[in-house]
């Protein structure tokens, strides 16, 4: 179809399937926003928003979250536009709207650019310029640095590119406080160091998919054993980084306990991945780490969120 070849991706990929013109539904456009990734972004951003000092009006807080969510979704849509050729050959992604032919690449590009601009401008006008600038940087980094540059060129793609996924708490903090400080930077660091073991665990049991798509993920380029070592090293760094908000006095003892216990479990599972290298047990170990890593990040930020909510409640009713 004529729509498909319009400057998408490095090799102007065909989207894989003939475009079913005019059949896109709102659900397809929502899928372009990567709602599951967006939910993680909203969750971590909410923690940043509620932990920040200042008395941002709840409606402005909601507006900031909405803009961050839409900005993240827009970056996801631009990622799908650029990576349509990769998505078409990977089993995990071939059902996405562009490779499935329900949305044309041109429509996805227009959708992503419009929402990117809109989310940044609205955040700048309604909340503050610092948050808008950070959101613009996040979108540009995810699309320009990770998607267009790193993803196809280096096995360190998700390490460096992970910064984009780590920034939402900082953007939300800036929206609420108007400044940035060490505490949101620690939140960013937690997500940043969480990203490699999470995605490399996935890549261990999806290596064939990535190899077929030509994406130089670490297991494809350096092999599974090197990946297992890197996972373990990152898990060993992640556990103390995750505990640091409690150690530095930003978070309470409940968070400290959760961070230590869950961090120990994360390291234990990483050790199991490192030591179990053959057969179905190795796949099971990688899947186990991948699944627990999601739970781990959720537990950390849920506890941060819970502590912030408790503090707000005590502040509202000092009985």
């Amino acid at each position, binding site marked *: 179809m004529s729509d498909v070849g319009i400057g998408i991706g490095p090799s102007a990929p065909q989207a894989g399937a003939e475009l079913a*013109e005019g*059949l896109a*539904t*709102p659900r397809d*456009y929502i899928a372009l926003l990567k709602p599951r990734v967006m939910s993680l972004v909203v969750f971590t951003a909410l923690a940043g928003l509620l932990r920040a000092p200042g008395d941002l009006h709840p*409606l*402005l807080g909601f*507006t900031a979250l909405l803009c961050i969510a839409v900005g993240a979704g827009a970056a996801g849509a631009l990622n799908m536009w650029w990576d349509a050729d990769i998505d078409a050959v990977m089993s995990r992604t071939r059902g996405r709207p562009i490779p499935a032919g329900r949305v044309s690449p041109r429509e996805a590009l227009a959708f992503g650019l419009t929402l990117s601009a809109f989310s940044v401008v609205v955040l700048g006008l*309604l909340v503050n310029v610092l948050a808008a600038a950070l959101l613009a940087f996040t979108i540009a980094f995810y699309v320009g640095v990770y998607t267009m540059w790193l993803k196809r060129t280096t096995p360190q793609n998700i390490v460096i590119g992970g910064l984009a996924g780590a920034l939402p708490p900082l953007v939300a903090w800036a929206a609420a406080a108007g400044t940035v400080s060490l505490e949101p930077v620690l939140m960013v660091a937690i997500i940043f160091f969480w990203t490699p073991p999470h995605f490399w665990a996935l890549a261990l049991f999806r290596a064939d998919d990535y190899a077929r798509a030509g994406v130089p993920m670490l297991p494809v380029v350096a092999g599974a054993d090197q990946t297992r070592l890197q996972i373990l090293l990152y898990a060993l760094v992640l556990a103390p980084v995750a505990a640091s908000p409690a150690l530095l006095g930003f978070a309470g003892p409940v968070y400290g306990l959760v961070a230590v216990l869950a961090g120990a479990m994360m390291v234990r599972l990483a050790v199991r991945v490192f030591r179990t290298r053959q057969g179905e047990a190795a796949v099971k170990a990688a899947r186990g780490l991948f699944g627990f890593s999601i739970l781990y990040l959720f537990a950390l930020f849920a506890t941060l969120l819970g502590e912030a909510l408790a503090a707000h409640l005590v502040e509202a009713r000092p009985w």
Partner: protein
Amino acid sequence: MVTSSRTFKPGVDAGGEHGRRRRPPVSANATVRSAPVIHLPRQQGPEDGVVLTPEQSRSRRARSIAIALVLAALALLFYAVTIVKLGPGVLDRPL
């Protein structure tokens, strides 16, 4: 008056594979350069122009409704944020 020797055949188009029928595209540049005047048929039958399949019509309607809802929600949000930013003090000033 110069008229184009090319006549339109309404409803015929290569895009018919998806049930869509279009007029042949008219290049604006070509029209300006050679200055032909194209007479479109005054009376067009129901089969002229883009004819969507029922499935395409349903999808378009769903998209239109979604856009309308989003725009309405945004208008409401901007109104509410404006009120919040103005604050209660806006009503408390000398006439």
